[in-house]
């Protein structure tokens, strides 16, 4: 703790630690990201959320110093020097690359040393990630989920001021997601900053303080999580599963339906809560030549917020 406080004392706690200003990185095929501007402040967990191909990984790679932006700038801790910034970053990309023949302990020893994390923090990092028991096994013999845990332990060791995680819940089981959520909460309470890129909206709702929605490489909304969810007050998410031709146009015409989008095997509807909304939708479906398989109603979440904003489903 003393070490952490000492390292934080060198940083401004009022200024943002990560500032992307008009950042853009486009590939030859036109895909990529930007221009995007965002800030991550101490104690914040910023989530980059968007469907596949929305540019969130490219954006995270730029923020993690791995990829140079085509235009625009990124500042880490008030400076534009990427090499200097790396001493305060912990980064996890999607690949689980390790020295596979060596153990998690051996790998962590290297990453811990490179990131100047004190030796006495190495073992607790493995224990926290629940990989200490298998810590002497070659990484190649670990399951994908366990390798992801080792990867996260290597990034979390030494409490980097700014943690950048691409698809952090990939391969994690329920207890793994819970551990990671707790670790990110603990970091936020210590005043450390985190930026994650994911479309796991359940996880984002657990950990994020701010959310930036990305669509086709552009930031369509960047706001506090609480504000985004509050905008959905009084709405309901309705999921329809059916067999037959899509009823989307008829459903959109029902009074109270704000958004509707086709998802795999059905329809996702966001409707203003009112008496008679569900019967009205069912009546509309009854007029059509389709077979209703299932209907679920639940409180709306971040995925519905994305649907309301963009008219598109976050998950296919």
């Amino acid at each position: 703790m003393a070490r952490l406080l000492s390292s934080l004392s060198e940083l401004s706690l009022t200024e943002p630690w990560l500032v992307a200003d008009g950042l853009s990185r486009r590939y030859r095929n036109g895909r990529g990201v930007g221009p995007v501007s965002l800030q991550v402040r101490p104690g914040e967990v910023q989530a980059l959320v968007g469907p596949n191909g929305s540019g969130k990984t490219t954006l995270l790679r730029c923020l993690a110093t791995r990829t140079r932006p085509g235009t625009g700038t990124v500042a880490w801790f008030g400076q534009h020097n990427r090499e200097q910034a790396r001493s305060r970053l912990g980064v996890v990309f999607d690949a689980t690359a390790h020295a596979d023949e060596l153990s998690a302990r051996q790998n962590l020893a290297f990453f811990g040393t490179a990131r100047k994390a004190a030796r006495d923090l190495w073992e607790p990092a493995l224990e926290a990630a629940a990989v200490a028991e298998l810590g002497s096994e070659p990484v190649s013999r670990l399951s994908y989920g366990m390798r992801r845990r080792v990867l996260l332990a290597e990034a979390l060791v030494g409490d980097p001021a700014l943690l950048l995680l691409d698809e952090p819940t990939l391969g994690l089981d329920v207890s793994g997601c819970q551990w990671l959520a707790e670790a990110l909460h603990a970091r936020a309470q210590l005043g450390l900053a985190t930026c994650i890129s994911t479309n796991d909206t359940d996880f984002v709702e657990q950990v994020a303080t701010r959310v930036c929605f990305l669509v086709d490489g552009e930031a369509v909304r960047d706001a506090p999580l609480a504000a985004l969810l509050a905008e959905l007050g009084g709405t309901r998410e309705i999921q329809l599963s059916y067999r037959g031709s899509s009823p989307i146009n008829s459903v959109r015409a029902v009074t109270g339906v704000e958004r509707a989008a086709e998802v795999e095997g059905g329809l996702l509807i966001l409707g203003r809560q009112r008496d008679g909304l569900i019967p009205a939708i069912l009546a509309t479906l009854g007029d059509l030549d389709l077979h209703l398989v299932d209907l679920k109603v639940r409180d709306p979440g971040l995925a519905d917020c994305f649907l309301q904003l963009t008219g598109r489903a976050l998950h296919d």
Partner: protein
Amino acid sequence: MTERSEVALQRAQPQFARRTGPRPTQLWQLELRGTLARRRALIIKLAFPLVLVIPLVTTGAPPFFAAMLLTVLISMVGTIGTGVTITRARGSGWLDRLAVLPLPAWRVSLELFFAGWLVDALQATLVLVVIAIAERPDAATLATTLLLALAALAFSGSIGLGIAALTDHPGEAMLYLAVVLAPLLFLSGLFTGVPAGGLRYWIAQILPFSYLDEGFQVLLGGNPPYGDPMAFLIAAIIFLAISVAAAASLGRAVLARTG
């Protein structure tokens, strides 16, 4: 966990620590230990030069051809060892991970290069051990040729690094390496000998393979226009220094390329 199994675990801990050894804290240590841990691959890696050198020295192959083959072998071991390994590391995402660590690019590059060079050096040393047993050359020539082999490996390794900065595919890297290496070996006089003068003579003087080729010829009982051993020694040191500097300066280019 029962009390008995806890005791057993506690007894096993020091043994396990001994087996795992000290933890690698530097990249070259991690890479080297990773290579040493791949036992089967390591045995094949060490054995395959022997498959070439043992028949050459035991059947009395003409020194000119034997030296040419061994020099080609050393050059390929160095280039492929480094070039293909690094393109593979990029494909697996390993370079991505190294690139975002607070380590300067030159150091990452140099440590990757060094770890590969150490294993390659082991291969070259085994080749020279076989020659030493079969031919019983004088110690000075043997030591000079060993140093030349190490310098040629380093030179080849830096070529491999350069190629790894150009491509993401190991197969493509192999093709590039062949395209670069073949003319260098030709210009080193491996296939035709070094002319007594002219441009090709001077080009051969700045390539380590020509020195190594001559060193092997002397070891194998040939009679090349072998120069002053001190000049060969100095050349080996200069080639080593140039290769190390090249490996360090290629760091940024190798890491900047994203797979």
